[in-house]
């Protein structure tokens, strides 16, 4: 059934006074919401204002010097990028695979419902619990030690449920006629998926990956005990290296560095860079989603 959104102007026959009172009601509801939004904007603006003074090409491409009171945050950016990349190497293939199964193959039975419920529950598991699991499994049991690999795998587990959910949604959005057309022409099920569904679902899947990246770069708890470090002069050179990371750098500068006055601007700069990364990936995802919505003529 066509769900038209219809409010406000659809109401007919309402006495003007009642409608006025109603409108006041909605305004009252909106005030806290807009208050919240205003606060968020203030927060972003404040971080921007405090951090922009430090931002420069040097800041982004130099390592910290002079006891981390000067220089830049290059190792943090590289570390965050590396560990996020490793996490995607694991979670994207596994996540898309699971999404394909759930969208295309899974019968409507108890096992499928269990899988879906498990995936949704995994999305709600606190990130520190993933950190615990990562220490027990990757650092200790699999003897990877504290390394960028262990952290990457732990983060991979963290963003796996998000990728599964968005991949499944992207594929379910493709109408059945796409598959049926291919099957009618004699392709196997997998061929019909590979040729007639995946390419069209790809933008939606990519949106999901971008959103997952946006949230992964800000995650601190999973990397705390699996590999991040306060200071390392060189960039990570092997899978077993320790690494610096943007969110941990912010935490460390705020709570452990001894020269607060000198490092406070750097901390703000780090927060701003982190925020910019998050917003950039979120925006990319949003733009992609809008483009997909516009070009998908099969969507009503």
């Amino acid at each position: 059934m066509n769900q038209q959104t219809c409010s406000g102007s659809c109401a007919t026959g309402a006495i003007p006074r009642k409608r006025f009172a109603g409108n006041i009601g909605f305004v009252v509801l909106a005030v806290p919401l807009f208050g919240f939004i205003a606060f968020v904007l203030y927060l972003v603006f404040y971080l921007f204002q405090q951090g922009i003074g430090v931002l420069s090409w040097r800041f982004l491409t130099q390592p910290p010097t002079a006891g981390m009171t000067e220089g830049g945050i290059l190792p943090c950016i590289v570390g965050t990028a590396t560990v996020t990349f490793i996490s995607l190497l694991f979670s994207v293939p596994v996540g898309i695979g699971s999404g394909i199964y759930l969208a295309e193959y899974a019968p409507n039975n108890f096992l499928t419902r269990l899988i879906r419920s498990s995936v949704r529950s995994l999305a709600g598991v606190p990130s520190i619990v993933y950190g615990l699991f990562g220490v027990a499994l990757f650092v200790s049991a699999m003897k990877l030690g504290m390394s960028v690999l262990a952290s990457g795998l732990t983060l991979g587990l963290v963003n796996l449920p998000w990728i599964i959910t968005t991949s499944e949604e992207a594929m379910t959005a493709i109408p059945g006629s796409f598959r049926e057309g291919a099957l009618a022409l004699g392709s196997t099920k997998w061929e019909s998926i590979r040729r007639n569904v995946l390419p069209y679902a790809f933008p939606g899947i990519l949106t999901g990956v971008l959103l997952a990246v946006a949230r992964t770069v800000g995650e601190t708890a999973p990397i705390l005990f699996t590999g991040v470090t306060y200071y390392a002069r060189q960039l990570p050179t092997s899978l077993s290296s320790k690494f610096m990371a943007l969110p941990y750098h912010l935490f460390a500068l705020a709570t452990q560095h001894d020269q607060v006055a000198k490092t406070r601007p750097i901390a703000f700069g780090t927060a701003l860079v982190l925020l910019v990364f998050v917003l950039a990936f979120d925006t990319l995802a949003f733009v992609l989603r809008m483009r997909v919505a516009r070009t998908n003529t099969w969507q009503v």
Partner: protein
Amino acid sequence: MNLRKTVDRSVKSAFMVNAVLSAGVLLGILVFLGLLGARLFRDVSPVRFFFDTVWNPDAYGEPRYGLVPLLVGSVVTTLLALVVAVPVGIAGAVFISERMKGWGRVALKTVVELFAGFPSVVLGFFGLVVLAPFISRLFNVPSGLNLLNAGVLLALMALPTIISVSDDALRVVPQSYREAAYALGATPWQTAMKVVLPAAKSGILAGTMLGFGRAVGETMAVLMVAGNAPIIPKSLFDPVRTITATIAVELGETPFNTSHFFALFALGLVLFVIALATNLIAESLIRREKRSFTL
């Protein structure tokens, strides 16, 4: 043709195994936490763990592993956050769902969702450098690192979840409900408050539960601003220590396979069970709401 068929069948099996293993991570986490956490009970009785009011693993005297101050810390900060976030969130969701349409609604929802991905360490940093001195000055208390600060930050983190899920719950209410109300002469406001909102109440409750789950599992922000004294708070301005902060602080310093190590996994298990329970309850509430619309 046979090759294609074989490929087709094996691909299906591969994907199925893939999906089962992914979901199996949940079981894996439960098993690891459960096995490691249970080993605590070889040295410490479960009764002492669950009911002791002191958490002091590195004590001068005998170590004590009491869950109570940490559980109270987690629950109280979360409830405080919800006291603010739930009314604001539901009100906002009603506004977005029932009053806004088109680009206005999209814009509002986008802003709300953007904030959902806000890194918690940045929020914690803000709480540390701006909110703490502000609280200290405004209420004339010695320190702004306390329950109140943590509660405010958690409210900010839970709001996007509550708004999002409540909005979904409201949108699922069939249009026919609204149309029937309009036909009887109701204004949009009356429709929203007396017809739509009550119809969506299960889903909205689900949103609250998911907000609870989000807040109770939050680590970095509370670690930076809650004051981290493992006591049962008696006022808004007392410091407090949550389960998440405890794990984050102590995991690094405990050698593998000691009582303290197992105790941290026991804490993790408690946290995991709470998060899992809230998620499952929320899911069933959402299902219940959707079912109530199919006669």
